[in-house]
């Protein structure tokens, strides 16, 4: 497969076309906005927590296929996880996107999220893939300021 095919895999194109959990949560108890000033990608993450566990998670916003698919995959993956598990996944995803590309294929317990590993060959797109993750991190912390990828 070419690098481009690695980037735009079927699963990513599918999540871009029909993003999961693409809605607002009216009674969300955590909410954060993320913004990528480089390209104008914008995302809002909504969280509903119960006993430290993510009971419901959703997102809205506009952006490229990579940022949309990444946010969609993330919401699917984080539902039911604890805040600590979410933080741990954040670190692994971050490592996968920014680390050495050759070390990626070894499973890192990321499951479906490894589909995003093709992004590391496209340094200009890493911020697209990580925006939703930065935003959920800031939502969990309850930080008032908007998350950015800068």
């Amino acid at each position, binding site marked *: 497969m070419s690098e*481009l095919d690695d980037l*735009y895999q079927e699963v990513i194109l599918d999540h871009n076309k029909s993003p999961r959990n693409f809605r607002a949560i009216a009674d969300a108890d955590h909410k954060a906005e993320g913004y990528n000033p480089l390209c*104008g*990608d*914008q995302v809002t993450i909504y969280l509903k927590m119960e006993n430290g566990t993510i009971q419901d998670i959703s997102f809205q916003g506009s952006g490229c296929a990579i940022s949309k698919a990444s946010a969609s995959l993330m919401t699917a993956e984080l539902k039911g996880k604890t805040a600590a598990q979410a933080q741990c996944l954040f670190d692994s995803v971050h490592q996968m996107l920014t680390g050495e590309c050759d070390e990626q294929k070894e499973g890192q317990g990321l499951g479906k999220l490894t589909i995003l590993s093709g992004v590391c060959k*496209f340094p200009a797109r890493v911020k697209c893939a990580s925006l939703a993750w930065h935003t959920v991190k800031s939502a969990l912390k309850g930080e008032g300021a908007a998350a950015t990828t800068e």
Partner: protein
Amino acid sequence: MKAAQDTQKPDLCPGLLDVESIRKDFPLLVRRVHGKPLVYFDNGATSQKPHPVIDALNRYYTEENSNIHRGVHYLSELATSLYEEARKKLRRFVNARRLEEIIFVRGTTEAINLVAQSYGRKFLGAGDEIVVSAMEHHSNIVPWQMLCEQVGARLRVIPINHDGELVLDEFRRLLNQRTKFVSITHVSNALGTVVPVKEVVKLAHAGGVPVLLDGAQAVPHLPVDVQEIDCDFYAFSGHKMFGPTGVGVLYGRAELLDKMPPYQGGGDMISLVTFEKTHYNVLPYKFEAGTPNIAGGIGLGAAVDYLAGLDWDQVAAHEKDLLEYATQAITKIDGLRIIGTAKEKAGVISFVLDHVHAHDVGTILDQEGVAVRAGHHCAMPVMQRFGVPATTRASFAFYNTRAEIDVLVGALHRVLKVFG
């Protein structure tokens, strides 16, 4: 390009621009990207450099490097005379009346900040109004917002129509007793619109309001004559007109520059310093504190010489052909919409594709060797005006060809295939 115009009558039937021979002057154009021949359509961001510019930089650091305006030794005098020679070339390039009206700066952004902070802080106050347009680059918005915060002035915005043209009637309506400054782009970087700047200046001057023009996107495409336009300030960057990065020019009317305080303090901008009082240097040095980008200035002079060697009737005809050819070719693509359809346009095509974000378009085009800009083009209010988050922009220079546009069209079909 001025020199060429002064000596030649406009040719009614200009011959074709010899693009193949021009391309040989730009060494970078032959390189490959991702194994494909480079198609460089990101000239609005920065242009490539011809051999004479690269050679001038190389020669300066190899044989001529020294600081200017200070040493009595041979090299210092040589570097000073080369740098001042470049200033003379730039005066001719924009047809300024006087040499001291040409101020070397880092680029358009610094030029606009200079005027906002020097002219603006001295002559504008609470309740005064500054007029910009809805198609400005951030560098012609933010410096004025900063000034507004400092002095309590207010920013007013001339709207644009759906084709991306300035609505002159709205400009007439905005002008009033409180209007103290107008700052507007000559050519829009995001839309390609060529603004009727003579008309804008005439309207502003009727109310005694000075006008700054952001010429960053104009100088690579059009001959500019500041006396004919009659503007008070004209700002442009070297790197978009085939010169080096880190150098640009602020043209200012001497009567205004004389009244303005220095922008930065330091060496070269003074005539006498004591701890009690400092006397500032004369124009243009009053605005040129510190050691400037000497190599850059000399390199920019070389770019001006290069441009003067081209037939600008041929350049204009070639760029018009590229724009028309590209517009026709890409409009045929399913779901593609061009943003910016002004009657008067420079070689810029911004577009959006249904269901495909500009960023994804940019990545796929890049894999085909085609370099474009994807994003908001530092003109977020323009994106908001057209209700799009971002566009893909192909911006042409005189060294581009129809064959390259064919490659772009082929690459766009690959985008559709990926997202089909």
